[in-house]
C-alpha cells in the first residue's frame, strides 16, 4: 500500500498548511500528487542544472546542511561553489537555496525556516565530526509520542 512507503521528503517535514483560505489556495496551486517539498525540490533543480538535484536529494542536502554547524557548512558550500561556474549561481538559486552565509548564521538559518514554512530536523544521516560540535552520535531523535511518554513517565516517578 502506498501509505507505508518511507517518504524521503519527510526528511524535512512540511509544515501543515494552515486551513485559511489563502493557504488553501496556495496548496491548490501545487500540482496534483506533489507535496510542497517536491515543488521546492524541483525549483532547486532548475537552478542547478549541472547537479540536477532530485527532490529527495534536495531535501537530504538541506537536512544535512541545516543541521551542521557554521564551520562545516561554510566549508561544504565553498567546495560546492568551486564546482560550478559563477553564472550558474543565479539570483533565483540564491533565493531558493539557502546560502552558506545564511546557513552558517543560526539566526538567519532559523529565519529562513520560519519564512519557508519548513521545520528543521534534528537528525541527519551523515556524520560531521571533523572539528565541529555536530556529530551523528549526539544528534537527537525527533521527539515523538513514545519518547514523550518515556519522559513523562520519568517526570511523574521523580519526586517533585
Amino acid at each position, binding site marked *: 500500500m502506498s501509505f507505508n512507503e518511507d517518504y524521503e521528503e519527510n526528511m524535512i517535514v512540511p509544515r501543515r498548511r*494552515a486551513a*485559511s483560505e489563502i493557504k488553501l489556495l496556495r496548496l491548490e496551486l501545487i500540482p496534483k500528487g506533489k507535496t510542497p517539498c517536491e515543488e521546492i525540490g524541483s525549483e532547486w533543480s532548475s537552478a542547478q542544472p549541472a547537479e540536477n538535484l532530485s527532490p529527495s536529494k534536495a531535501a537530504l542536502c538541506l537536512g544535512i546542511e541545516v543541521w551542521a554547524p557554521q564551520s562545516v557548512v561554510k566549508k561544504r558550500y565553498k567546495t560546492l561553489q568551486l564546482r560550478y561556474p559563477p553564472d550558474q549561481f543565479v539570483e533565483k538559486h540564491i533565493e531558493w537555496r539557502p546560502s552558506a552565509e545564511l546557513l552558517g548564521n543560526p539566526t538567519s538559518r532559523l529565519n529562513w525556516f520560519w519564512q519557508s514554512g519548513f521545520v*528543521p530536523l534534528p537528525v541527519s544521516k551523515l556524520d560531521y565530526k571533523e572539528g565541529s560540535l555536530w556529530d551523528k552520535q549526539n544528534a*537527537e531523535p525527533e521527539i515523538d509520542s513514545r519518547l514523550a511518554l518515556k519522559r513523562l513517565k520519568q517526570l511523574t516517578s521523580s519526586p517533585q
Partner: protein
Amino acid sequence: MSNIIIQKIISEFEKDFDTFENYLLLSTEINEFKDYLLNYRGMPFRLKESSLQVSQCAKQFTEDTMSYFINIFSKSGLFSCQNHEITNILCEVEKSVNLILYYWFGLNDRNYQFMTLIHFYNINNVSSVFLTKNNQDFSVTLTEYGIKFGLAESLHEPKCMPVSKVCALTDFYIPNNERVLFARIRTVQREICLLIDDWEHLNSVLAVDYGTKYQNLQQNNSKKSEEEFEAVSLKMNIRRDTLALWCMESFCDFQDWITVLKTKNNFNEDILSEIDATAALLLSAVQKIFLPASVSRHRYCREILSLFKKFATSRIAMNSEDLSSHLLLQVIQSSEGKDFSNLLLSFIEKKPFEWSLTFDPSSALKAFSWSYSREHHILLCLIYTISYFRKIAPNFVDNHQLSDIATTIQMPETFAIDTQHKILNFDKSDISPDLFEKLYIIAKGYLEKNFKVTKNNEELYMFVLNGLKL
C-alpha cells in the same frame, strides 16, 4: 496517594502504547480514508458517500479507545479514590494524554492526527460515563482537541501539558557535554517551530470556522445562523485562551532555560550563537501570540497576562536593556492597574541613542491597550514613538512607519468599551503632567526633524502629533 496513581496510569499507558496506537491506525484499513487524508486540511468535511465500514470503524474506535483508558484506570486503582482525588488525577492524566496525542501522527504524515480521526469518524464530543460514585459521574469524552476526562457535567476544554516538559530542559543546568547540549538546543529550536506551526494551524482552522458562520449570518439572518455564530464566537474565544496559555507555558520554560544558559556564558562560540538564534526564534513565536489580540481584538484572560509578564521578566534577566521587554512588562502592569515603572522612564534620559528593540513593541501595546488607562496609553505610545525614532538610522521615518505609530495610538478606540475590565481611574500622583510635556517635546522634535510632511501624509502626521498629547 494521587501521585502514585498518576504514576501507575502513565506507566500502564506507556507499557501498552502499541495497543493504543493500533486503535489510532485502524482507519488505514478503510478505503475512503486515503482520499480523506489527501483532502483534509484541518476542517471536518463529509465524504461523498460514507460506507458502512466507516461507521462500523467509528463505533469500534470509540469503544476501543474509551475502554482502553477505563481499563488502565481500573488497573491503577483510581476507582477506590475519593471524588476530589479522582478529579485531580484525571486532570493530570488528561494533560499527559493530550501531550502524547500532540506528538502522535500516523504514517509519517503530519496531516494524520487525532483530530483527523475525530473529523473522519465524525465523533466529536462523543462521551461515555465510566464511573458512578456518590452521585457523581465521571466520563471520558473524545473531542477534536483531544481526550477529556473528568466529571461528566464538566464543560472544560481538553487541557494539554506544555511541550517544554518533555524537552529535557533541566538536564543542562550543569552542562557537561557541549556536543549533547548543541544537539539539545537544536531540538528545542525544532520544538518551537513545531509548536508555533500548530498554533497557526489551529488558529486558522478556527478562523475559517468563524468566517463561514459569519458569512452565513450575513447572507441569511435567521435565528439558526445567529445561534451558530454565537456558538462559534464563544468557541473561538475559549479556544484562543486555551491555546495561548498552552503555548506561553512552554515559551516561558524555554526562555527560562535560555536565560540560565546565557548567564553561564562560558560556552563555545558555536553554542552561544545557537542560543542567541533560539532566543530570537522564541521572540518571533511569542509575537505570534499577540496577533489575535492586536489584530482581532481578542481579550486574553488573566492567566495569560501573568505568563507574558513571566516571559518579559526572564528576558530582562538575560538582557537588562531589552527595551521591548520592558515595554511589554509595563503594558501588562498597566493593564493590572499598577504604577508606571520609573526604570522604563529613566531609559529615555539615560540611554541617549540607538536602543535595541528586540521585537516590535507595538504589538504588545495594541494587544492590551483596551484595558489600561488613557494616560498610560499615551505614555507608552510616547516612549514607543521616541524609541522608534532612535532606533532607525539615520532616524528618518517614512509614511509606513508613521502609520504604525498612528495605528498604535488609535488602537484602544477600536475595541468596544468594557467598563467592567478597563482601568478607568488611575492614580494621578503616579505621573506628573510635566513628564508628559517633556516626552511630548522630545517626540515632537523627532517628528519635525525626521519626517517629511507632504500633502498626502499631512493628516497622518497631525493625527500622531495630536494623539501623543495628554
